[in-house]
C-alpha cells in the first residue's frame, strides 16, 4: 500500500513539474490561476491550456500504456526481454505510418493514427501467429524469434519507402525519435477509448498471469485456459501500444525498464513478483519516467527540444545495464 501511495505521489509531483516548467517562463502562481480558470493573459493561457496540459496528459496516458504493455508482454512470454519494440508492435506502427505518408500522401496526425493502429495490430498478430504455430504452441523463444523476424522485415520495407519518398523520410525521422511535443488534446481523446479497454483487459488478466508464470503445464492443471489468456493479452498489448505509439512515436525502454524496476521494488517490499501489484505499479511509474524525460528534454536544450524518446533511452539504458549487473533477470 505504501508503494502505491509513493508511486502516486511521485506521479503527481511529475505532473506538477511538467505543468510548471517549459520553454516559456511562467510563475507557478500564474499557472495555478490558469488551471483554475482565471488566466492572467492570453499568452499564458495558450501555453498552459493548449500546450502543457495536453502534453502532460499525453505523457501520463502514453507512459501508463507502455509500462502496462511491457509488464503484460513479459508475463505472457515469460521473456525478460519482451518489449513492444522487440515483438514487432512498434515496427508495425512505424511501417504503417510511412506507408500512410509515402504511398497515400497523408500529412496530418489525424490521418495516420488509424494507420499506425492497424499496423501495430497486424504486426503483433503476425508475430503471435508465427510464434504460436506448431505442436507445442507459443514458447518464449519462438515468440521472440518471430518478433525479431517481423520487426526486421517491416524495418526493411520502411527504409525502402523512406528512401524513395523524401516526404516520408522527413516525417519518419522526427516521429521515430519519439516525442510528446506538438500533439493536440484531440489526439489524446481519440486514443483514450483504446487505452481504457486495453488497460481493463490487462488488469482483469493479472490473477491468471500469476498462474501462467508457473509454466503452461501447471497453469493448465490449475484450470487456466492458457490460449485464451494469451489471446486476450495480445489484444490488450495491441490496443495499448498501437494507440500510444500512433501519437507519441515508438518510445522504447519504458515498457522494458519500468516493470523490471517495479519487480525490484516489490522484492524489497517482500511481496514478490505478483502481477496484481506489478501491473498497476508499472502503470503508475512508467509515466513518471516518460514525463521526467520530457521535462528534461524541454529544459536542457531551450529554446529547442530533445525528444522524450531519446532521453528515455539515455536514462533507461544505463539503468537497464545496472539492473542487468545487479540482478538475474532470468528470474521472472
Amino acid at each position, binding site marked *: 500500500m505504501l508503494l502505491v501511495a509513493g508511486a502516486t505521489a511521485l506521479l503527481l509531483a511529475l505532473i506538477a513539474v511538467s505543468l510548471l516548467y517549459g520553454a516559456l517562463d511562467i510563475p507557478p502562481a500564474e499557472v495555478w490561476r490558469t488551471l483554475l480558470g482565471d488566466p492572467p493573459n492570453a499568452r499564458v493561457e495558450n501555453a498552459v491550456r493548449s500546450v502543457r496540459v495536453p502534453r502532460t496528459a499525453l505523457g501520463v496516458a502514453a507512459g501508463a500504456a507502455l509500462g502496462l504493455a511491457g509488464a503484460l508482454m513479459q508475463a505472457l512470454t515469460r521473456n525478460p526481454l519482451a518489449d513492444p519494440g522487440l515483438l514487432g508492435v512498434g515496427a508495425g506502427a512505424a511501417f504503417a505510418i510511412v506507408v500512410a505518408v509515402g504511398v497515400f500522401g497523408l500529412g496530418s496526425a489525424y490521418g495516420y493514427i488509424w494507420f499506425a493502429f492497424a499496423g501495430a495490430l497486424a504486426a503483433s498478430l503476425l508475430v503471435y501467429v508465427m510464434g504460436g*504455430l506448431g505442436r507445442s504452441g507459443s514458447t518464449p523463444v519462438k515468440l521472440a524469434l518471430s518478433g525479431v523476424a517481423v520487426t526486421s522485415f517491416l524495418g526493411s520495407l520502411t527504409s525502402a519507402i523512406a528512401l524513395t519518398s523524401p516526404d516520408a523520410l522527413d516525417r519518419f525521422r522526427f516521429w521515430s525519435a519519439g516525442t510528446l511535443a506538438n500533439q493536440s488534446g484531440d489526439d489524446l481523446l481519440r486514443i483514450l477509448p483504446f487505452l481504457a479497454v486495453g488497460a481493463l483487459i490487462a488488469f482483469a488478466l493479472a490473477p491468471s498471469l500469476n498462474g501462467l508464470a508457473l509454466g503452461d503445464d501447471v497453469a493448465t492443471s490449475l484450470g487456466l485456459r492458457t490460449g485464451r489468456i494469451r489471446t486476450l493479452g495480445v489484444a490488450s498489448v495491441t490496443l495499448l501500444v498501437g494507440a500510444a505509439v500512433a501519437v507519441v512515436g515508438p518510445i522504447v525502454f519504458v515498457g522494458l525498464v519500468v516493470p523490471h524496476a517495479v519487480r525490484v521494488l516489490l522484492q524489497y517490499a517482500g511481496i514478490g513478483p505478483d502481477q496484481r501489484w506489478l501491473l498497476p505499479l508499472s502503470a503508475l511509474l512508467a509515466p513518471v519516467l516518460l514525463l521526467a524525460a520530457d521535462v528534461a528534454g524541454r529544459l536542457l536544450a531551450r529554446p529547442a527540444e530533445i525528444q522524450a524518446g531519446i532521453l528515455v533511452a539515455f536514462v533507461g539504458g544505463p539503468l537497464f545495464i545496472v539492473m542487468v549487473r545487479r540482478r538475474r533477470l532470468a528470474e521472472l
Partner: protein
Amino acid sequence: MTDLLTRRGEPPAAAPGPRRRGDRLPFRLAAPPVSGILRPRLTAVSAGLAAAVFAVFCWGMTAGDVPIAVADVVRALFGHGEPGNRLIVIELRLPRALAGLLVGCAFGLAGALFQTLTRNPLASPDMIGITQGAGTAVVAGLVLGVGSGLGTQLLGLLGGLVTAALVYLLAWRRGATGYRIILVGIGIAWICTSITDFLMARGARHEAQAALGWLVGNLNGRDWPQITPLLWALAVLVPAALLLGRQLRDLQLGDDVARGLGIRVQWVRVAALLTGVGLAAFGAAAAGPVAFVALAAPQIAQRLARTAWPPLIASGLAGALMVLVSDLVARRLIGGTELPVGVVTGVLGAPVLLWLLVRANRAGSGG
C-alpha cells in the same frame, strides 16, 4: 630417473590430452553415432551452398544494363574477349560481386560466432549493439561533417569496436556470461539508436537521406578500396573463427565442464568476441550494416544441416548467398532504380527465417 619412470608409467593422467586431440582426427570416423549422422549432411549442405554461391556469383556478373553471356564473363575474367565486356566485368561487376560475397561471408560467420558464444539464436551483431554503434559513428560523421569515403569506413569500424568493448566491459562481473552480454548489448544498442535518431532529426534532409542509405546497407559502387581491407581482415579472422569454433562448442556444455576439459573459458570468449566483432565491423565498414544476414544466415545453415549449433563454414556461405541473391534482386527488381541490398536482405530473409521457424515448429523441434 624415478621421476621420469613414474611419469611415463602414468598413462591415465596423460591420456585425456591425446585422446581428445584424437577426436578431431580420423578416430572420429570410426565412431558412427556422432560422425556418421552429422558430418555427411553438414558436408553436403556446405558443398551445396558453395555451389549455389558460385552459381549466383557468376550469374550476377552476367546481369545488368548490358547483359553478358556466361562464357563471355569467364573469358573477360581471364583477360580475353571484347575490351568492352572486360571493362564492365572486371571494373564494375567483379568488385561489386566480390564485395557482396565477402560481406555476406563476414556477417554470416560473425552471427554464427555470436550465436554459439551466447547460446542464443537472437544474438547477432545487430541485436547486441555493435551494428548500432557503427551506425552512430557513421551518422555522426555524416551529420557533423567528419567526412565520407574512407572516413565513413574507418568511423564504422571504430564505432563497432568501441561499442563491443563497452558491451563486454559492462557485462563483465567476475566473468562475462552470454546472457549478460546480450542484455547489456541490447541496452547499448538502444542508446546508440537514440543518438542516431537524434542526429538524423537534427541534420539536414540530404544528410539524413545519405545516413539512412548507409544504415540500410548498400553495395552500390563498391570498389577495391572497400574490398581490400575486408579481404585482409577475412584472411586473418576466418581461420581464427574456425580454430575457435570447436572450443566454443565445448563451452556449450557449461563453463565448469568446459574448464574441466581444459579450455580457458574467458580467453576463448574474449577471442571469439573479438573475432566476431572484427568480422561484423569490417563487413559493415565495407557495405553498411546489411540487415538480417548475421541473424538469419547461421539459423538457415543450422536448420539445413540439422546441427545443434550454427556450423561456421556453412553459415558464412549462407550469408554470402543471401547477400549475392539480394543484391541481384535489388539491382533488377525495379528498372532504373538500384535499391540498397539491405532492403532486400530484410524483405527476403525474414520470410525465409519465418518459414524455417514454422517448419521446425511443425516438426516439434522449434525453440
